[in-house]
């Protein structure tokens, strides 16, 4: 494989086949024309390659369900509540205080990353991971049971399903308005602005759906993996 590297284009070569290709050039030159979104990565992710991202979100959802199916232990419902009182204290005073200071900022910033993802670096996956990480931090500092009070297991799965529902439902809505699945320009009659702005707003909706699912599945993954499915006590 190392001997084959001399056939590859040089690093930073702007005329390499991958950079000169028609697909990449199309994305770079037409993204703002067609969708009014300056962040090409988000535009390609949520609009031009909408199917890809949709099934990617479904992959995360299936992984979350798979972890629950493999690990979740539904036995001993009352012994867990006893353990909760005894063992689950989380981190020390310093960790609790620091986390209570920075958690709101993390969450607000992650919401900003989701909402502003089509104008600046960011998007549903990134913001969703940050929001999920903020809940994981809460679980680490204050104990998993406290985090579970805020974001219970039931609510986690509902959030994940709602995320998928928003994404797929938005695609079906385009279908109902007489265009192809996930062709957002069909929605310009119910969204402000013209068809291009409709694509921009639709990207925001789709990213919100992705963020819902990613947040929920991240926290679900952590809470299941760190407790071996018993959900009684964090790390």
């Amino acid at each position, binding site marked *: 494989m190392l001997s084959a590297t001399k056939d590859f284009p040089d690093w930073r070569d702007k005329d390499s086949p991958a950079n000169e290709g028609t697909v990449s050039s199309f994305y770079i030159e037409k993204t703002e024309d067609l969708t009014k979104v300056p962040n090409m990565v988000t535009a*390609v992710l949520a609009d031009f390659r909408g199917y890809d991202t949709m099934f990617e979100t479904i992959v995360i959802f299936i992984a979350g369900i798979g*972890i629950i199916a493999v*690990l979740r232990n539904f036995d001993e419902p009352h012994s867990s509540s006893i353990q909760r009182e005894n063992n689950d204290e989380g981190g020390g005073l310093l960790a609790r205080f620091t986390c209570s200071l920075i958690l709101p900022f993390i969450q607000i910033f992650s919401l900003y990353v989701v909402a502003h993802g089509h104008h600046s670096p960011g998007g549903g996956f990134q913001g969703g991971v940050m929001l999920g990480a903020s809940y994981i931090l809460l679980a680490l500092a204050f104990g998993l049971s406290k985090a579970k009070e805020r974001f219970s297991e039931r609510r986690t799965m509902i959030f994940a399903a709602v995320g998928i529902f928003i994404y797929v439902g938005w695609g079906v809505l385009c279908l109902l308005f007489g265009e192809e699945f996930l062709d957002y320009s069909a929605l310009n009659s119910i969204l402000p602005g013209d068809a291009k702005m409709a694509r921009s707003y639709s990207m925001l909706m789709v990213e919100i759906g992705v963020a819902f699912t990613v947040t929920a599945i991240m926290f679900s993954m952590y809470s299941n993996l760190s407790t071996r499915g018993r959900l009684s006590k964090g790390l």
Partner: protein
Amino acid sequence: MDPIIATFIEDNIVPKFNYWIYVILMMIGLYAMITKNNLMKKLIGMAIFQTAIILFYVSIGVKDTAGIPIISHHGSEHHQGATVHSESGSSSEEVSPVKVKNNTIDKDKYANPLPHVLMLTAIVVGVSTLGLALAISQKIFKSFGTLEEDEILNKLRPGSQ
């Protein structure tokens, strides 16, 4: 240094060092996945392998003159729209060259967005597979008491217990 080695490095390694790093990382991951006996080490190898692929794709999209793939003059969008209208109404000589330049997008100024998008997908799928693999290995540890592959195979063999 030997001039032959020096020219080799200059011609083959320096302009293509990203591929060298990617191949080396990938081989480390493959080695760990094939030879290690512990399932957790295999998973680490898999993660390294995925990282190598991500490095490969992202380094393909790099251009010498490019910045991030976000169009930078988006804030003056309405302004541009007004310019276009006046252009169609009156003579087109009044439009300053700066604005004309703003309206066309030079594709050498933006990094290739396609590898970034593909790798965003790959990272997410990697996280999903890693999480599921960790869950399964926890289950294996619960039922076999070990994560060493040969011990698990010994316990699986009929008549060993």
